[in-house]
């Protein structure tokens, strides 16, 4: 069956419908990773987004139940050049199309993804709709205008607080849509974890007396999370705080910095980040549409993007606060910066 992706700017990309046959509206973004489509699809940070993969062959090695970053796919839609229907890998458990269908995700293949990528690159990220039918301009306009991702975090955070036992440091995790591999990374280091919903109050967090507060990754605009920012302001100075991605941005906002939206984001597995403290470059996995535009006072940049010079990490000059924009937990992508987790655990009052 044919289906179309229609962008906010009116451009139409026609392809073949895949997965679950149902209209999908979202923010259209691209990811340049050549492997790791399964991790991308299940990364909660992509909630509300229609993700297009720049690598043309997707689904070659199928999907399995081990490499998921959350229990279900979080993307709103998925766009590829060629979806593979005959995957082969020793761990392959399900085919791409079947996985999408069963999880009610609309997808498209046979799309000129390079063209789409260049449009997004030049015009910036924009909303789009995947539709199976001929629809009027007015309808599209209405649908796109009606789309908002401001409650994204509430849809992907844990509903209930839960704990994971461990003999090491006790980490209080604020879950804004945490990737499974972050939890695995703390687990590997023997940490005890208490995972809080995004709506948790500072009192609730302090009540478990953690050694460290960790702010997770997650979808959407950090400025939408006013309550969280307030909560963080209360925590600052009381507990060591570290964070990744959205967590990093929220921390910046809580400390009085500014965030802004990137034109087309950083999404892929090949982003060079310079660690200014070590004077060393790491190839990192990234997935963010927003960034810290202005560092809070009394913080210094610890990492910068070698591609566009944006802040990729910060440390407070006096307080036990340290956060990074990129994804040291990888999945997908290189694990070169995995030692960031060790550094997180070193942060103390």
């Amino acid at each position, binding site marked *: 069956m044919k289906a179309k992706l229609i962008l906010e700017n009116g451009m139409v990309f026609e392809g073949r419908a895949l997965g679950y046959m149902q209209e999908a509206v979202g923010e259209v973004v691209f990811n340049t990773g050549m492997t790791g489509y399964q991790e991308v699809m299940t990364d909660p940070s992509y909630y509300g987004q229609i993700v297009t993969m720049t690598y043309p062959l997707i689904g*070659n090695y199928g999907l399995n139940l081990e490499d998921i970053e959350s229990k279900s796919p979080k993307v709103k839609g998925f766009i590829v050049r060629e979806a593979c229907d005959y995957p082969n890998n020793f761990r392959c458990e399900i085919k791409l199309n079947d996985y999408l269908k069963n999880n009610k995700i609309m997808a498209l293949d046979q799309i000129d993804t390079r063209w789409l990528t260049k449009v997004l*690159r030049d015009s910036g990220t924009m909303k789009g709709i995947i539709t199976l039918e001929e629809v009027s301009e007015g309808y599209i306009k209405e649908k796109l205008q009606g789309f908002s991702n401001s409650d994204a975090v509430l849809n992907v955070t844990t509903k209930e607080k839960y704990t994971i036992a461990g003999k090491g440091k006790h980490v209080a995790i604020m879950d804004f849509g945490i990737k499974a591999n972050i939890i695995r990374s703390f687990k590997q280091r023997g940490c005890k974890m208490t995972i809080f919903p995004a709506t948790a109050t500072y009192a609730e967090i302090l009540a478990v007396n953690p050694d460290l507060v960790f702010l997770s990754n997650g979808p959407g605009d950090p400025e939408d999370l006013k309550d969280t920012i307030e909560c963080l302001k209360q925590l600052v100075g009381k507990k060591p705080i570290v964070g990744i991605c959205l967590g990093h941005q929220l921390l910046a906002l809580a400390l009085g910095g500014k965030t802004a939206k990137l034109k087309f984001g950083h999404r892929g597995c090949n982003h060079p980040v310079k660690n200014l403290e070590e004077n060393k470059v790491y190839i990192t996995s990234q997935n963010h549409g927003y960034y810290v535009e202005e560092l809070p006072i009394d913080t210094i940049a610890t990492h910068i993007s070698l*591609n566009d010079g944006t802040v990729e990490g910060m440390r407070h000059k006096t307080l036990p606060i340290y956060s990074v924009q990129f994804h040291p937990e990888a999945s997908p992508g290189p694990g070169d910066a995995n030692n960031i987790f060790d550094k997180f655990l070193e942060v103390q009052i």
Partner: protein
Amino acid sequence: MPLNKDIKKVLVIGSGPIVIGQAAEFDYSGTQACEALKEEGIEVVLINSNPATIMTDKEVVHKIYIEPLTIAFIEKVIAKERPDSLLAGVGGQTGLNLSVELYEMGILEKYNVQVIGTPIESIKKGEDRELFRDVMKKINQPCIESEVIVDMESGKAYSNKLGYPVIVRPAYTLAGTGGGIANNEEELELILEQGLHMSAIGQVLIERSVKGWKEVEYEVMRDKQGNCICVCNMENIDPVGIHTGDSIVVAPSQTLSDKEYQMLRTASIEIINAVGIKGGCNVQFALHPHSYEYAVIEINPRVSRSSALASKATGYPIAKVAAKIALGYDLDEIKNEVTKKTFACFEPSLDYVVVKIPKWPFDKFHSADRQLGTKMMATGEVMAIGSNFEAAFLKGIRSLDIGRYTLVHKDMMKLSLEELKEKVKAPDDERIFALAEMIRRDYRSEMITKATGIDRFFVKKIKNIVEREEMLKSYTLDMLTRDLLLDLKKMGFADKGIADLIGTSPEIIYTLRMKLGIKPVYNMVDTCAGEFEALTPYYYSTYNAYDEVTVSNRSKVIVIGSGPIRIGQGIEFDYASVHAVKALKRMNIETIIINNNPETVSTDFDISDKLYFEPLTEEDVLNIIDKEKPEGIILQFGGQTAIKLAKFLEGKNVAILGTNSEQIDTAENREKFEALLEELNIERPKGIAVWNVDSGLKEAEILGYPILVRPSYVLGGQGMEITYTADELTYYLKNAFEKDSKNPVLIDKYLMGREIEVDAICDGEEILIPGIMEHLERAGVHSGDSITMYPTQNVSAEIKEKVLEYTRKLALGIGIQGMINIQFIEYCEKLYVIEVNPRASRTVPYISKVSGVPIVDIATRVMLGEKLVNLGYGINVYKEPELVAVKVPVFSTQKLPGVEVCLGPEMRSTGEVLGVGADINEALYKGFLGAGMLLKKRKGVILATINDNDKEEFLGIAKDLEVLGYSLMCTSGTAKFLKQAGLKVESVRKLSEEEPNILNLIKKMEVDLVINTPTKGKDAEREGFMIRRAAIEKNIGVITVLDTIKTLIEVTKRYNSDFDIENLKIYNMGKN
């Protein structure tokens, strides 16, 4: 850290002559590295014995020494030039081994030369198997269970412990030379003996066979700060067991999940950190297809064939970045040349699929054992880029220039399913076609995977193609709807492929395509999958919606490259293509290159204004012409691959610059050519076409023996032979007519004269001959295989005058506009023409360098209408240089089991070296030394078997050898003859006689050299063949033409007594 200011003058060691396993890729990476050094203001001193390279150009480096790549000569260069640094990693295995040797011998220390880039200690850690295994153990990287073996007994014992099959890998050899898989003790004995002998240090590794595992390679880089990146990973479609140089390779990997991809990437980085690489490195893994288990196969701590492929596949210039790292820069200080904004410290992301397919020489060598294994046999490779695997794969198939546009292969159709299965299990160069045929006959894909170890994913991809082919076979033209045709084009089907399958002509498919508006678009190779704006003018075709090419309104010319490196069409043509582009650029014309060879300089994206990485078929070339609408197209520098497009393109009203197709035909069509010679009153050896043995014999009597015979339907020297007697001729003709009775055999009077060769430029009015060359071997040896001397040594002024006159007449008579190559024979003071090529030839770089005439530049200008008289190099014969230069061919026959060694009218060499001297002897000495042909004295014994025609002539040679202190061993006939003449000779038993016979002698390596002039006739031929093969496989020199040994003796006489390197000079061929 920024540029190390202490580095001012850098020595670069090239990789020497092209041989299998070390080809044009080192000219590409070497040239790129030299340019990178130069751009930092560093003086570059180069030593490389191979004149056919771009890197040995004045424009590329400052000081050029085209000298033998031996320690003694490199030391001379160091002593004379006093470089402060040595860049070790860009000259292939040759350059690396020499660098290690210079270091170990204390020469670098003596002259205070520091090694920049990866340090010697690290190179040794990567190259020495024992050291490497220790490092791997330390960092917990799994190696394949193995042991270093230095003798036969412990080899056998260890193999028994491991269990067969085992793999034997000699240390310090290139492309697995001397290694192999042994399935039992008997095989082990053979392989191990050879391996121990071939290794520079008498060391091999015997390892557990992981045959059937996936072979995955990573190209990684590291700077001295410890920043590491992975440029590209590549998956071999052929599993472990087939040398990666002989494997079909796809980039990036297709069947690895992120977890496996990252596992191996991380391992690569840990390895280069532990080894201490400063530059580029290739890491090869074997990955178990059904688990996470993997093992490190080996690393190459230098630029390599794989790094060249990775550079072309991603757009990331590995050699350039490696050179900058060597100069002190860190990865985050080096600009990304593609985006000009980002830095070299990132990992390319591909949004297309790249397929590399090797090019094997078996179309030329019918007798070769084609089975692929751990020893590389391919002479070159093609690369293809597509939006999907099928498209890249089909583009690759048609880039091979083997006349295939689909996977349908008639020979495979004749085989039974059992035979096909055997063929894919013991794979050869045609296994993909066998595999396709099995799919065609509904053989289960799963079982193909089981039999071959090729991943099901790839089998299915090939099945997709086969299914379409089968569908098309039942279709007619009117069933080709727009959707279907577009779909086929997206999948990479050629018009010709579609036409063949439905039974029409490609012309009709093309017309239909135009009517339906189905045209390719061109997408960019930009290193970043479109994430950033890129400025690389590097494109591939695809049938997507969106075209990224902007056609400028400048005047532009397309230069067609020569495709994969093969015997007879080598790196020389790439040299010419690159120079044509440079000439056009100087003329302010926009340049566009089309080529499909990833190993070359011409496909470096900053050589031309635009690079189209595409097959060189009629359709693919025309599509680009339709798009770019150039003023003209240049074919003369692309060898036969380009020349054969002339007629088709002219039919499409494309302006071919220079000689046109009709004129080309005059030179190539035998009848037209003879008519022209007649008209010009130029003689060629008398000849005639015969249809049966009797008439052949009759004609031969009239012409007189010896007779040159060849099949009429082939071009060049294929199947050509010289017969001296009626018996020999009968034998040849019988064979020829048995094979093919529909075509005549051509028989020519064979003139045993001196061969003379010229490359000339003609502007339609005047000609310029940059140099007249003389061949050392008498006529009958292919010009590419004979030793060539320039200036001529034995050609009289009268004959030279005649050469000029004939060249002039022929060039004007054919209507040449640009290049022409002519081969003459001087016989009894008369000049005969034997061959004319209306294009650049393989001697162009050699003559350009020695004469100082920029031949390609002038020819290009002439093609665009300029006149020779205005170009500053005059007309007629250019003045001869003071130096003498000798081109000596180099062979890779050793690596090709079953291939004839004997020199003849069919070309067999893969490369060449140049010897430069103040006189011919010095030049010859260096040429022989560089080619590894000098007489050695280990045992002091030379084995000679001489045919009856040559015995008389051999007498003098035998006497000379005696004087030089060699004792001779001969088979009965030769021995008897020499004894009668009073020489001391030891007789050895013939091959057909009881052991120990001649073969045992060779196998025990009791002789230093084999002189064998072949005899025709079934048994004699077979025996001679076996002797020559046995010798070559034991690394014993084989000489089959007496002229060669005579000259070798001359040179040895002169340099033997005072074999003092001090007396030999070295010559800077660059700027002073």
